[in-house]
């Protein structure tokens, strides 16, 4: 009888310890998960911010100015454009 009690006592203590441990693990993993989610959100925000920045850097005004001033380009006029028609390609306009 005493022996059984002893075994049960040990079992209870072990399971209690394990409970504490798993509770601790839960919290630790939860916090880690939280952190990762936050990081993901932050990266998403950074992406959005960079996209905006890219758009701001690529506005037609800036592109046109850079092309004109730095690269000495000019707008294509029909006079300097060779138009080709892709065979078998139905243009939207000729539907």
């Amino acid at each position, binding site marked *: 009888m005493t022996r059984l009690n002893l075994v049960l006592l040990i079992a209870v203590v072990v399971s209690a310890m394990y409970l504490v441990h798993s509770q601790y693990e839960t919290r630790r993993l939860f*916090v880690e998960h939280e952190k990762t989610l936050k990081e993901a959100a932050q990266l998403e*925000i950074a992406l959005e*911010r960079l*996209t905006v920045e890219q*758009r701001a850097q690529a506005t037609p005004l800036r592109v046109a100015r850079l092309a004109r001033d730095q690269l000495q380009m000019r*707008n294509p006029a*029909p*006079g300097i454009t*060779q138009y080709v028609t892709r065979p078998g390609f139905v243009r939207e306009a000729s539907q």
Partner: protein
Amino acid sequence: MRSRSVQLSSSPLLTSKTPVWRSQLIVATIALAFAALAVRAAYVQVIDNAFFKRQGEVRFARTLELPANRGRILDRNGLLLATSVPAPSIWANPEDMERDPEKLRQLARLLGVLPADLEKKLANEDKTFVWLKRQLDESVAKEILALDIKGVYTIKEYKRLYPEGEAAAHVVGFTNVEDVGQEGMELVFQKQLAGRSGSRRVIKDRLGRVVEDIGEAVLPVDGVDLQLSIDNKVQFFAYQKLRDAVLEHKAKAGSVVVLDAQTGEVLALANYPSYSPDKRVNLSGEQLRNRALTDTFEPGSTMKPLVISQALEKGIVRPESRIETAPGRLTISGSTISDAHPQGTLTVSEVIQKSSNIGTVKIAMQMQPKDMWEIFTQVGFGQKPQIPFPGVVSGKLRPYKTWRPIEQATMSYGYGLSTSLFQLARSYTVFSHDGEVIPASLMKIENPSVTSGARVISAEHALAVRKMLNLAAGPGGTAPKAQTVGYSVGGKTGTAHKQEGKGYAGKKYRGFFVGLAPIERPRIIVAVMIDEPSNGRYFGGDVAAPVFSETVQQTLRLMGVQPDMSVKPQTAVQAVEESF
């Protein structure tokens, strides 16, 4: 010194006998106290535990709001027109704020305010909440938090960014500091863009870290992205050309509308003066007004093609019918109508080409007022355009039963009714879409091939009018400046005296132009209006037609439309020279 010491063992107190009831009393008292504690513990933990549970929860459970992201606004190609980025706001609690002068000075520097101004904000120590600055850059907010001043906090907020700036400002609109749409599409689609915020309940530890979820979280529903029909490049070019023209002609304002001639989608809609939606300071009503939709004016000669098309439809005239316009004056019930340049006998086509008032009136007076009213109504005058936009106006078109003959005459060349530039542009879809007027749309149309409208005139007559419009924009017409390189264009100029009060303002005009290109199979309609040009010239053909020409040239190139007129190749000549 003499001491009087007593031996402890011989203390008289020990010798006296203690009564038994004393110790029993003490034991009983302690037992009773324990029993009381047990009862109280049972009461607190088992019987009436709700209060304490609640109090406990208040101390560690928190409800976190999960804000929904505001939807983005995109152009037809998916490029950003408006998007949200986080911009933390800084607030302080003056009641229990740390007031280290050195730290406050640094704080003022980071906030970009004078230390004195900051002091003033924090002066009232009875307050518990003061905004220090809203919507800062995230990096600055981090630096402020790094100062670690007690009583200074941040709140996560969002800021709206508009990469296209002032070019698209009137269409896209803007939000206020609370992220609520105030103008334009931001206002119209506020509900869809805003989404619905969610919430979750969590347990926080002593340091404010989230350690556990309680129950199910209510997930936020993000706002939907809005895809407009605007093409950001077309929008930009149109705005740029318009701005140049307004400045060149020292005009008060101007508007331009570009429509896809086959689908009715709005490719560009711009006004000048405009504003930068990111930095809105000292905005005036002049800048905010979306003139293309909210300002009406008498459309003048741009009405003539509509009247003529109805006359063709009713079989009153044919394009080659001859109309006598000499001597350039015509009297109807006591009022005299005249042409700027008296012409002789003109064909109907030439009436449009030369923009003859007499010719138009002579044709119009053979029509029933009802027929004229019908064409005006069918193409949308006197009705609000079916597009969602704040402050859209309907213009003015009186019922035909109240028309007097002279009014019917003046209306045939565009006086006595009013329209917005947007309505004017849309009305010309009747010519571009082979006689069907199609609804305009600010949203991208996913399946453009199914666009169909209400038939107003026959396809044959629509083409006939397009050819007349082509003549008007050609040599000998009223707007040769509307021509482009490679693309055939057609359009009608208009110049209207501005109305002020009941009469016409002496020297104030509006010059406008509405046209389409290419003639055979139109792809775009462009309408341009310049308000009060005051640099000498004010005719629509001089001030508005060049904007039309440049906008058409750029837009058709961007759309990849092949020129329909022969163009003298410029590179080939050079290439030949170089190869020798």
